[in-house]
């Protein structure tokens, strides 16, 4: 047990180090964007009619702490996030990023996680069928579909479905809510409305992830199926589903759990473009807004940090899960027990 706790602590420590490196990369990127927050803010004020002098910019820089050295500001950014969970203010929107993001990020996360779960629910049985089927044509066509999942990028799928819906049903199916619920507080009706619309982004985001997961599962099953222990089990007279679930499927589960983090990464990666097409009002769309339109470095940094932090957390959880589930890793962790 002590070994296990030690393992968990080491993993947690490593995750935090990864997160710190990511923080540093993200923060340096934010710094590299031409222009500072102070200049942006004052440029905005300038358009409102007030005269801006050089001294004003300097004063604003001091107020925002931009006169301090790079490392100091980096430390402050990180410690604000770690201690106060505060991402500071958005440069352009003049709002606290926490208020801006709180609801939306949870919404994005829900959609992505549901998409992830669905893709695994489909990919695992279909992958097993593809790997073990007697019919070559079935395997080949499943393989073709999974390749199509890569070749048809999900923004293309989103685009096609949306155009199709617009032309033949008159409803664009865009957005996460219909108009009457857009700004309404959460209620049973709003949840219903949300579910009626959320299937499209979930399907589109899950589409690629399913294809990838399918390939992983298929390859793993093919590998395991030829191994001696499976042959031994077959020789003992176990066959069919009970053989599959007891031996190769169980063994392939470990690497599949390991790949969850990367599949989530892929879904997050697809999120902004899909959000742009489907006009979702969540964090992904905000990211595009922040980067492509307004160059809002604070907001963009915060979103990328949150996405990455989620992935790091999921990786941490899957590592622990694997240590509990897989006897081989458990033995390594617990030390021979």
């Amino acid at each position, binding site marked *: 047990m002590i070994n296990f706790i030690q393992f968990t602590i080491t993993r947690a420590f490593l995750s935090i180090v990864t997160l710190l490196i990511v923080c540093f990369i993200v923060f340096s990127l934010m710094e590299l964007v031409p222009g500072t927050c102070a200049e942006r803010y004052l440029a905005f004020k300038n358009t409102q009619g007030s005269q801006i002098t050089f001294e004003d910019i300097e004063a604003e820089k001091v107020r925002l702490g931009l006169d301090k050295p790079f490392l100091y500001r980096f430390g402050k950014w990180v410690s604000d996030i770690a201690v106060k969970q505060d991402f500071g203010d958005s440069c352009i929107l003049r709002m606290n990023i926490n208020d801006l993001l709180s609801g939306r990020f949870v919404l994005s996360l829900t959609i992505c996680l549901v998409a992830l779960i669905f893709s695994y629910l489909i990919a695992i049985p279909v992958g097993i069928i593809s790997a073990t089927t007697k019919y070559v044509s079935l395997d080949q066509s499943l393989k073709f579909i999974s390749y199509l999942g890569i070749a048809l990028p999900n923004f293309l799928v989103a685009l096609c479905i949306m155009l199709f819906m617009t032309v033949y049903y008159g409803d664009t199916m865009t957005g996460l809510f219909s108009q009457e619920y857009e700004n309404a507080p959460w209620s049973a009706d709003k949840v219903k409305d949300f579910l009626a619309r959320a299937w499209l982004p979930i399907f589109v985001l899950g589409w690629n992830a399913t294809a990838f997961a399918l390939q992983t599962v298929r390859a793993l099953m093919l590998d395991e199926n030829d191994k001696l222990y499976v042959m031994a089990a077959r020789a003992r007279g176990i066959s069919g589903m009970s053989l599959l679930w007891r031996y190769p499927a169980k063994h392939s589960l470990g690497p599949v759990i390991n790949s969850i983090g990367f599949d989530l990464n892929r879904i997050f990666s697809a999120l902004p473009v899909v959000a742009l097409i489907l006009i979702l009002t969540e964090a992904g769309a905000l990211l595009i807004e922040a*980067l492509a339109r307004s160059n809002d470095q604070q907001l963009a940094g915060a979103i990328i940090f949150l996405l990455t932090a989620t992935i790091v957390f999921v990786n941490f959880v899957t590592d622990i899960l694997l240590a509990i589930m897989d006897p081989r890793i458990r033995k390594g962790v617990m030390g021979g027990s």
Partner: protein
Amino acid sequence: MEVSIKKKEAYYTATQMQLVRTRFFGNRSAMIAGSILLFMIVCSLFSGFLSPYDPTIAGRDKNYENGAPQIPMFWDENGFSPRPFLHTLTKYRGADTNFRWVYKTDTEKRRYVYFFVKGWEYKYFNYSINLPGKALDFTIPGLTFDTHLFGVEEGGIHLFGTDKAGKDLFSRTLSAIYISLAVGTLGVFISFVLSLIIGGISGYYGGWIDSLLQMFTDAIRTVPPIPLFMCLAAFAPLEWSSELRFFFISCLLGLISWPTLARRVRTHLLSERSQEYILAAKMCGASSTHIIIRHLLPSFTSYIIVDLVISFPYMLLSETALSFIGLGLREPVNSLGVLLQNATKADVLLNYQWYFIPVFFLVVLILTFVYVGDGLRDAADPHKTKN
């Protein structure tokens, strides 16, 4: 009996590359995909010769905007012709068409398609280098051609139709495939060099250098790539020239996608460096560089090639996604993502379906790449005996 022994002998004396080649040629789906891919690459390389019009705004057809594809035919109600021809179209609008421009087909007037005609000029090996300072600007003239595979004498021939500015979609698609492949190649090359250096150092030296570099690589791998791309692509100022933008986007693709390959290189090196032949080389007094270049790199060349081919479609997809949202390449450069941008409106699906033709080529290009990559991976895997 004689034959089977010979076969066995050939099998056991074959080099690694020969084995890979035999296995790859035996894989039917990979071979089909490979031929399609090769065909597309050759077409894109000769895009200047194959396309009847300049793919940029210079080649637009003012009299045929948003025009439907024109397919050359051999016969109509007036009879058969050995030379393919098109009917003449005239632009017309009036009260009966609700004052919208429509094209009327005049089946009496035939326009014949001619081959190897002279048309717009295209150049190969033409580079102009603009370094700071007047004296350093110079241009390599390269080779200029103006012969095209086909064309018509009057009016236009638009196999895939035209877009809203009247640019020929067939020519644009060909040049877009070329540009997208070029961006991908440059990106793959940059990520290849980076991953060789970083993965090589990490795998060969091991120890704390390895742990440090691996931590860094893993951290980059956890950041979702497209948001990171977007973040970096937003640096490119709007006033940059299209060539500079092209180069910048390729560099970004390379800079972000190296970690996966670097990890593979490291794993190979870690398992190879404890082999006896490396020890032998060390005992002969060979230097580290010599061992890496002469012994370690050749030991996994086939793996690297396979990984490069596999990573290619992701480069194409990333470029497409970036250009699609307007952060990647922009007009006047054609790329598949730029062409996709035009197909985002419901109007297009109802009236101008031919805008989707480039989408088809994108999907085929990526599918063939994935199939070829998969075939190569299977062929390069020495443990795989069947398939």
